[in-house]
């Protein structure tokens, strides 16, 4: 560790991993409810589980990004963090607010939560993924702004690199688009239209900048390839991401009451969206091939390459499967969407957090050359368990989605099978999905175990 203030990243990483465990557990509970509808009834109904599952994902990724940034920025800027104290303080504020919100979801009926937190004063609750009480949303804004202030001041006072500038651009974008979470038009079509400004423009716009910057950072560190070479790739990827991602918002405006031209804009722009992800694969493998150093932390490079590949599969391939308007007409909101969502979030964003954690955590724990070989072996096993688990889960959901489309969407109104009947017919597939979900959890537990593997003492 070059700068002592990088240490503030550690609690962020640990908390992100804890939240990930929570997210998977809630996911498994939901997977079980698909099979046994009264599981956990009446304590935690499906809608609450789902809300906790998705909100945990968003918060864990924010924690992961923040930790990654606090680790990366001092090294890129070649100076200590502007205010390590502020970073520590916001960690506790964000963690406390996050936990309180999740507990609120679990123990207070949502309507009561809305009422007791004066949602009617400025109503922002009730939108999918943005269910947080207005107060929590304000808290998120405060935390994110203080985080951006901290990072910006560090960058301004220190060395400016392509990585830090792109990361900052992503962070500013993240902050800007979150503001649409506070704008809730009463017209339902308008509501959905602006809701995507947060959801899509985070995930398929600004977050991709953050992803690109983090990936480039780890690749520079683990391969020793020239910065100049990496910068060029990064610019190319980022340019393509922004152009295709911004116009690609159109693929969410199919059949929701928006004008028909979105069918064309959305289809064509999002057909280009897999390209930056494919470039990321070329980027990662090219850098690994031309590496100038053999870094002892091999597993970090494995995660980096994995991020590029699984990100491409989840976001690129599974996204493209149903992004063209005529196809989306049938697939909209089926399990195919869930398949895409799971692999894309895992491949692109959860895995980039793992990449950063696997690179930075050993250093933060006083092992500059990465964990020992035994620990890395365990981590490699966890890598494959999680990756294969997620791919298996995605394939199962894809089969479920196709069955759903075949039974519910393709036939005419007279012959279409009802929702519950369809769900019953898919139940075997849901069982497979649950099994792969368990595999992912076991993978994560193995990952946790890799932190505690004792290395045999080298013979003196």
């Amino acid at each position: 560790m070059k700068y002592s203030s990088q240490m503030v990243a550690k609690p962020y990483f640990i908390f992100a991993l804890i939240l990930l465990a929570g997210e998977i557990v809630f996911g498994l509970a939901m997977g079980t409810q698909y099979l046994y509808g009264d599981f956990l009834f009446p304590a935690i109904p499906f809608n609450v589980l789902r809300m906790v599952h998705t909100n945990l994902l968003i918060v864990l990724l924010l924690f992961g990004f923040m930790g990654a940034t606090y680790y990366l920025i001092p090294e890129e800027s070649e100076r200590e963090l502007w205010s390590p104290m502020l970073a520590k303080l916001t960690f506790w504020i964000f963690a406390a607010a996050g936990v309180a919100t999740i507990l609120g979801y679990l123990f207070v009926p949502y309507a009561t939560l809305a009422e007791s937190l004066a949602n009617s004063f400025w109503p922002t609750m009730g939108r999918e993924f943005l269910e947080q009480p207005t107060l929590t949303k304000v808290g998120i804004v405060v935390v994110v702004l203080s985080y951006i202030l901290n990072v910006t001041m560090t960058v301004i006072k220190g060395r400016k690199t392509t990585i830090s500038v792109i990361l900052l651009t992503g962070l500013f974008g993240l902050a800007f688009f979150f503001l649409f979470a506070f704008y809730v038009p009463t017209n339902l079509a308008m509501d959905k239209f602006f809701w995507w400004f947060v959801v899509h423009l985070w995930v398929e716009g600004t977050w991709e900048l953050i992803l690109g910057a983090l990936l480039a950072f780890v690749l520079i560190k683990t391969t020793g390839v020239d910065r100049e070479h990496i910068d060029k790739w990064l610019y190319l990827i980022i340019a393509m991401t922004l152009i295709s991602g911004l116009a690609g918002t159109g693929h969410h405006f199919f059949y929701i009451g928006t004008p028909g031209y979105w069918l064309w804009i959305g289809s064509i722009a999002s057909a280009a969206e897999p390209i930056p992800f494919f470039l990321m694969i070329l980027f990662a493998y090219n850098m690994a091939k031309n590496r100038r150093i053999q870094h002892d932390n091999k597993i970090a490079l494995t995660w980096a390459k994995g991020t590029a590949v699984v990100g491409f599969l989840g976001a690129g391939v599974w996204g493209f499967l149903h992004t063209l308007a005529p196809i989306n007409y049938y697939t909209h909101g089926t399990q195919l969407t869930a398949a895409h969502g799971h692999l894309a979030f895992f491949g692109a964003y959860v895995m980039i957090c793992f990449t950063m954690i696997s690179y930075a955590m050993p250093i933060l724990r006083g092992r500059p050359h990465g964990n020992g070989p035994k620990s890395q072996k365990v981590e490699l096993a966890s890598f494959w368990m999680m990756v294969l688990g997620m791919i298996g889960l995605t394939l199962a959901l894809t089969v479920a989605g196709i069955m759903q489309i075949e039974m519910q969407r393709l036939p005419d109104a007279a012959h279409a099978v009802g929702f519950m009947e369809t769900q019953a017919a898919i139940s075997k597939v849901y069982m497979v999905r649950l099994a792969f979900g368990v595999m992912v959890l076991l993978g994560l537990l193995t990952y946790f175990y890799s932190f505690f593997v004792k290395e045999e003492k080298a013979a003196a």
Partner: protein
Amino acid sequence: MAKTLSIKAPYPPGDFAIWIIVYVELVTFGLLFVGYAYSRRANLHLFNDSQLLLNQTTGFINTLLLITSSFFIVKAVEKIKSMTHDTRYKSNIAASHWLLSAIVLGSFFLVLKLTEFSHIFGQGITLSTNTFFMFYLLLTMFHFMHVSLGVIILVNLYRKTKSQGYTSEDCRGLESGALYWHLVDLLWIVLFPLVYIIR
């Protein structure tokens, strides 16, 4: 005869990245062109009637502007590539003149296009008017953004030639910019007959 600085012309010219961009652009515009053709087949009368509202003359002038500007870019690259040890200053200045001429023509294109847009919008036409105008506006506005970016790129190349920044061996930036401008030109050459002329 003075020896040129370049021993062997590298092929393909320009940066690897610009070729990726060129292919992606061609595929994206290609999809739009195919979409246009497909929709036109289904709404032949609507497309033919709507097309009459477009001004073919400004479209033709714009075509000439872009083709000529592309020629100027070729001359600029040629000046740099044929540079000798003694002519670095002269060649860069000559290239800068060609680039400036291309910038002027490109800017004319943008001005003409803006007047065309204001005329179209003045008639109350929007993306939602009909399928033809949706394609017309999507294609031409998307292309307009490309020309705008192209002009910005050319201005940067111009500034570099003004400071004698290129040699015949070190001119990948210039070649990449030139490639981009040719792409913009090529797209218009397909777009113009497709949307303005073919009936």
